[in-house]
């Protein structure tokens, strides 16, 4: 297990965003995290990569307790992430964005050593022709790719993908899924938050479902799609849901 989330809780005032969530991530696999809006998915990422310290529980990465470490330290240990709402370094070029990802990441590269890594990653995500553009000028799909490129450039052991497919058209989604599968081929572990069910079920090896901050189910994509609790969380009444799912097939 490359990452263990052990009974993690996070409160914001009276709101319980995460309630003793526990699961493990096997090395080299894709783990999908699903759940309705407000289920605590992004909060979970923010706790894993140190943006928020949890109120309880532990995060163990490669056998080391990284709970409450600051984000930059966690990045250097090899966990990269993308943001649901893209955060390009707008007034820097696309290439400089990715170079920043490479030189401050796990290997602490010099600028000279980071440049070829950045160019290679830009090729991989298909942004090579935009490298001299200012990041602010990219469109949404390109900004999502940039987020991914920055994360990859760090040569991480694990990437947290926060809704990289949201806002993309079907063509772009298909391309992005290919990129994601390719990342796994490179041996990088992925945790992905996704709203698009068919996409997440398609690429994940293992799925964790959250609702109101609690883990309600965990298993293979097939197990999750048939889990009554998951169906209820998404559709309310399991009976209605059953009929709905039957209609889908």
């Amino acid at each position: 297990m490359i990452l263990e989330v052990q009974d993690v809780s996070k409160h914001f005032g009276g709101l319980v965003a995460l309630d003793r969530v526990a699961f493990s991530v096997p090395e080299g696999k894709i783990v999908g995290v699903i759940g309705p809006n407000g289920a605590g998915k992004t909060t979970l990422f923010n706790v894993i990569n140190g943006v928020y310290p949890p109120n309880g529980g532990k995060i163990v990465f490669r056998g080391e307790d990284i709970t409450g470490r600051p984000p930059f330290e966690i990045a250097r240990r090899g966990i990269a992430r993308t943001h649901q709402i893209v955060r390009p370094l707008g007034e820097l070029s696309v290439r400089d964005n990715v170079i920043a990802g490479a030189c401050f990441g796990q290997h602490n590269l010099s600028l000279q050593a980071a440049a070829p890594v950045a160019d290679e990653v830009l090729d991989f995500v298909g942004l090579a022709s935009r490298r001299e553009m200012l990041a602010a000028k990219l469109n949404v799909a390109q900004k999502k790719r940039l987020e991914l490129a920055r994360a990859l450039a760090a040569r991480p052991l694990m990437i947290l993908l926060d809704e990289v497919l949201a806002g993309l058209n079907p063509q772009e989604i298909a391309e992005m899924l290919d990129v994601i599968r390719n990342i796994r081929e490179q041996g990088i572990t992925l945790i992905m938050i996704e709203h698009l069910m068919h996409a997440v079920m398609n690429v994940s090896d293992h799925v964790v479902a959250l609702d109101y901050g609690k883990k309600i189910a965990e298993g293979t994509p097939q197990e999750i799609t048939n889990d009554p609790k998951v169906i209820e969380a998404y559709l309310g009444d399991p009976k209605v849901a059953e009929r709905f799912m039957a209609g889908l097939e």
Partner: protein
Amino acid sequence: MKTLQSRYLWIVLLIIALVGLMPIVLNSPTMREEVFLILMLIVLASSVNIIMGYTGYVSFGHIVFFGLGGYVAFYLMQTFQVHLVLAAIAGGLVASAFAFLLGTPVLRLRGAYFALATIGINEAVRTFVNNFEPFGGSVGMFFNFSVYDAYGGAANALWFTYYALIVVTLLTIAASFWIKKSKFGLGLMAIREDQDAAQVLGINAARYKVLAFTASAFFSGAVGALFFFKNGIIEPNIAFDLLRSIEGLVMVMLGGFGTVIGPVIGAAVYELLRSTLITAPPLNLGFTTINFSNFHLFITGFLLLLIVLFITTGAVGLLRQRVPVLRRYLE
């Protein structure tokens, strides 16, 4: 490309050196005084640009480092007859140390809160010095003329200060360029663009910001030492003059913040404009005095308004936007 860029740095340094040499070649003290001011403002503007332009933290009270460096150096020279060069280095180091200590808490603040805090610090230090006996309190300190004897008399001392300023200016520009082009600079600019994203990329934002603040304070402190040595007198209201702080920001905005050459151009243009306006023939347009005292400040305010409204990136930034080819050369 790398050699092109370092060639660019050498060209900028060469131009500044040539301008600096002019008064020496022409042996003109009047011109020297004018160029002295320009070079000093270039150093101040470039220094504030490191924290404001590269890192995105607008330091309104940056003049505190100028004043502090000036006071420390002045004190050392007057009391212990320390040589100007050593005193200027000491002034810079003390300013840096002060920035380092303050930076840790103050740089946690963002945006307007940071700007306000820096004003507060400047005012607090001014008030402190106003009441601090070893620094002469509100009267300040002034040199006994014999201080200049070590440099071969007052006239020679002024020339010597000027040479020292040329060196400090060249060092400041080189440092500014080096920071901009280094991994450190990339980290600073990432912080400027999005601090939280920068941290997620692995940048230790707190440490980077404090280092930028510390580096930036050094040059302001060192140049403060030179200025007040030349002046022969130092007092709190001149050393910690908030107006000069704001003028520094205008210069950076005018030339283009976040670029190496922007503050240089901004400072030069600003100072030339100021001296022209001051010496311009009076216009009788119904103002209370014929000369409209501080007319340049009226223009400054107006300029700042125009920049903020229409060319937020300043002159150099505008050029870089309009002519993409220049992006590769104009830093």
